[in-house]
């Protein structure tokens, strides 16, 4: 019924005896107390709000049992900023008003943080394709795509964004 597991979340080791049926998302939220990872659709695995990274790869934590994550390294939204410095995507989301209600943001950021790591140059089509597994009920996809483009877009637009960020505020 229960099993002893050890999961590293954002660099911190959690050793617990958990029911086998406990979902990874519930381990993250209820055992580790990291509530930045959200639960949206609750079971079909269609909304992507619970997306976290397992060993650096984006997965839906509602479609995994906590026991399956035994020995793995998890990164959640709480671990995306390093030493208080926002991930470039987080900053871009802020700059482009891509959060809106914020419910889907954590899942999108954890999915796309992996996407931008492996896809430096991406067209808008590729960016939208990468977002298929994440639903935004505010339907604010235009702002979300704008923000992602700033980090994962063609080199020209990255350059422009970078220059914009370098300019002193007037």
């Amino acid at each position, binding site marked *: *019924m229960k*099993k002893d597991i050890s999961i590293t979340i954002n660099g911190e080791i959690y050793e617990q005896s958990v*029911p*086998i*049926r406990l*979902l990874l998302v519930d381990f993250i939220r209820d055992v580790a107390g990291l509530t930045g990872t959200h639960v949206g659709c*609750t*079971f*079909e*695995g269609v909304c*992507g709000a619970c*997306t976290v990274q397992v060993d650096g*790869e*984006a*997965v*839906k934590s*509602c*479609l*995994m*049992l906590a*026991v*399956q994550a*035994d020995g793995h390294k998890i990164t959640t939204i709480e671990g995306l900023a390093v030493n208080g410095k926002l991930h470039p995507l987080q900053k871009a989301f802020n700059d482009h008003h891509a959060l809106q209600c914020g419910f889907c943001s954590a899942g999108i950021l954890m*999915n796309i943080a*992996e*996407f931008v790591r492996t896809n430096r140059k991406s067209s808008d089509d590729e960016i939208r*394709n*990468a977002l*298929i*597994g*994440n639903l935004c009920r505010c339907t604010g996809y235009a702002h979300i795509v704008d923000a992602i483009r700033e980090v994962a877009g063609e080199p020209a637009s990255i350059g422009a964004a970078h220059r914009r960020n370098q300019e002193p505020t007037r």
Partner: protein
Amino acid sequence: MYPAVIDSYDAPTSVQEALQAFAQRGNDCHFIAGGQSLMQAIKARVISPKSLIDLQHVAELNGIEYKQGAVRIGAMTRYRDIAADERLDGAFQALRDAASHVGDRQVRNRGTIGGSLCWNYIAACMPPTCIGIGASLDLVSKTGKRSLRAEEFLQGPLETARGDDEIVVAVTLPAPRQSCGSAYKKWGLVTDALPVAGVCAFIERGDDGRCELARLAVGGLATGPRRAKTGEKALIGVSATDASAISEAAETAAASTETQSDMWADAEYRKRLIATLARQVITSAFARATRGKHS
């Protein structure tokens, strides 16, 4: 939604260990691969396994091997790895077409070819694709090994020839004889959705460039994935540039396929989808069958 109580969980590191664990756990025991379908069913309590045997750490089930043109895809190989493997291009490119559009990035990061075939969901892409490209499945149990052609293994939706105590260890593809190409395409209500219909075509071209062997497989059917053999026959002797003969074969394939009406498409509309998709994948498969003399 929350799973019912699960009594035991094993994470073996070899096929032998996995088979032993199954023998010990007995009834209501399930193997779990990537879990992208199975976890939905467990959470919805469509199934309530008492024991789970997780195959994620069985290294021998993972990876794609090439030997003199033949391909062996470990059952636990994920969609993301199939989608990225350019060595499949040409004869087995349909696998990449299918794998690169299953679900979404997150699903492709965990979902596996073996898991999809064992679940055989009505709208899954791997079943018709594997039938189309002429794949076989290697199965292992405590009592022995056997190999089944995909079309023998895959039965009605959610049904396969696998015994409860059998593990699918690999999907194997015979070395293509000459110029072969394949393609898969699906149509769903939104981009990359579970398809209403999906069609896979495999074309082998002779020295004169004409089709010598064809396989067409259709998914999204209440009967389970099926070959459209009258459509295949209509392709024999057809050349890549003969658009009207290709269209005719596609129409024949659709006309001879038994389709159902459901909330996504009525039977007649499904036939239109199959005809259109078949024309497109046959055309792509011809174009991809350029290895050797036609390159």
